[in-house]
């Protein structure tokens, strides 16, 4: 057998990570909602308030992890829903790469936003 023996085709890996990210998101999304609507209130939002949260390293890294996990879970979910509906061939490849591109844009923009509060570089 070759060096890297694994019969783990992509299908299974995506399924597995979808569940793992799901478990993580259940907790973090609930926390996010709770913090931003019940502890702090939507009508009291200011730049300064958001900044005070993001300047804490623990909160910042949690939010970054939240962003990456949610993007993966959401985009993978959409991709799977489309395959279930019968997306095949070239159209599927096009959709796949479009989704990946959209995810990258989302991630970049998200990190830049978080950085804007945390005082880290936002690049362009």
């Amino acid at each position, binding site marked *: 057998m070759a060096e890297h023996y*694994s*019969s*783990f085709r992509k*299908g*299974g890996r*995506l*399924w597995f990570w979808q569940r793992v990210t799901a478990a993580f998101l259940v907790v973090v999304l609930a926390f996010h909602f709770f913090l931003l609507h019940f502890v702090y209130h939507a009508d009291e939002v200011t730049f300064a308030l958001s900044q005070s949260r993001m300047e804490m390293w623990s909160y910042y890294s949690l939010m970054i992890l939240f962003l990456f996990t949610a993007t993966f879970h959401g985009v993978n979910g959409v991709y799977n829903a489309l395959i*279930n*509906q*019968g997306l095949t061939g070239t159209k599927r490849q096009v959709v796949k790469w479009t989704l990946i591109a959209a995810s990258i844009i989302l991630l970049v923009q998200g990190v830049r936003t978080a950085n804007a509060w945390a005082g880290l570089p936002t690049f362009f």
Partner: protein
Amino acid sequence: MSTHPPQQEQEPEESPTEQPPESVEETSPGKQKRETDKADRRIREAQREADEAAADDGPTRHIKVFRYDPEVESKQEPRFDDFHVPFEKGMTVLDALIYARDNYDPSLTFRHSCRQAICGSDAFFVNGDQCLGCKTQISELSEPVRIEPLPHQDVVKDLVVDMEHFYDEMKAVDPYFDPDETPAGDLEEQRQSRQNREKVKMSTRCIWCGACFSSCNIAAGDNQYLGPAALNKAYRFAMDEREGSERKQQRLETIEQEHGVWRCQTQFSCTNVCPKDIPLTEHIQELKREAVKNNLKFW
């Protein structure tokens, strides 16, 4: 039944005729009254039974059957035909269809064979649910009973659907016993423990009727999805200890491709409609867990 000539027969229970004569002088008025009361009761009971029987065996049941025939002008556009079949106690959907075909329209076409839920030929879509015709009681269905061919599959004629795709998916999982090694001796048995048999018992019940496959939305959308029946078959053999670990590995590899177990969205429709009560979703879930556990080892 008694072979005695009728004159010597005892009067039957329901008969309201007079009691065996007793000397009138010895019967008190009270006793006479009791005896006439008893006779009255017997008449009333008999009448009530007859009434009930008549109500249950209402004259006919109304069935609406999907008709389609590409070769006949009038049936090229699908339509529903109405039949009123005389009801008999214990009548099944299949009975009703056979009656309709034999007495009203000989061109009514549907598959059936054993009529005892073992051949898997007569899976239909009745009142919105997949079921076996021979196993479904007409008395339990609301009228008019709508009988259609299985959804998601192309209709060949009337209630007959093209099962080729279903069979292709079944074949794809090698649905036969295929051990790594056979025992050395000529007459030696391949033993299976009781627990192992219990484990695969339910999965052996599949009769290839196709009801589950036609109830799955993923199977409907994704043409390459193996489907619940094929995955259950794979489970039946992968979990059979007599096959050996190498064959199990190969089987797992087949079903863990992208359009294998991972497509299942645990909709549970398959489990709900299986006429043999096989817990299909449970089996597929177990296969998913097996696949994940199997692969975690190699990271």
